[in-house]
């Protein structure tokens, strides 16, 4: 699968990749973006199968990215990896079309549990 990781923290992008590996999700093609706006363009050109996105980012938030993708008619499986994990924010994520939400900080087990359905 082509998996894109979007987070303005480079340390966090590295931790997500490491945790994907620890959770047993190997042999996939990874790409990264540190900015929601740049990710929007990259998703249009590279067509990933799955986007793992942070919520709060300076230029364009994760939810704005998802909404922009929807408006542009781009269908891609999209999930959040974020500190924003309250019931209200989960409702917002669901309403925008997210498939899942992993709360930060996370463990390899939570990646296994939540991503097992989405990463084949």
């Amino acid at each position: 699968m082509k998996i894109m990781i979007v987070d303005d923290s480079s340390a966090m992008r590295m931790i997500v990749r490491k945790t994907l590996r620890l959770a047993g999700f190997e042999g996939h093609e990874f790409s990264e973006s540190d900015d929601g706006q740049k990710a929007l363009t990259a998703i249009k050109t590279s067509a990933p199968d799955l986007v793992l996105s942070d919520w709060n980012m300076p230029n364009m938030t994760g939810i704005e990215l998802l909404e922009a993708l929807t408006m542009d008619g781009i269908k891609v499986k999209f999930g959040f990896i974020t500190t924003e994990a309250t019931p209200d924010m989960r409702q917002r994520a669901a309403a925008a079309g997210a498939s899942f939400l992993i709360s930060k900080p996370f463990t390899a087990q939570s990646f296994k549990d939540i991503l097992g359905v989405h990463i084949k």
Partner: protein
Amino acid sequence: MSAYPLPDAAHVKDLLGMLFDGLTVKPGTKLDLSPKALSYVGLYASDDGQLAAFCGCDLAFATSSGAALSMLPPTAAKEAAKERQLTPVMLANLHEVMNICTRLILRDDSPHLKLREICAIGALPATVAAALGAAKRRIDFEVTIAKYGNGVLAVLCV
């Protein structure tokens, strides 16, 4: 019951323990928040822009956590502490750590809270410094990250 209850040591350990291996958290001495201190403060605002909480730390916590998050060599943390200066990577990482610390303050039923920015304690605008001084509730912890060292982390709520 306050909208933003203070965390206890167990809560800090549960949360930050998922980020850092070999983490211990104990109640600690009070963080120095005087203007000359080498401390940093994260400012948390509710959706209406009002500052509702603060997360402060000393230079030692900032260098330890800042280095540990990127798995930099522990000597990098020691160097930065000696220089009394965070490297750009450490500052960016401290930002992420304090973003995660939002979950020490915010509960499922609390009004939404977000990290607005991090300031060096000496660079706080007067109004913010006043708000920090007026924060009635606080708790201070000594946080040790294995191999990287220990520092002070404080949570203050209005």
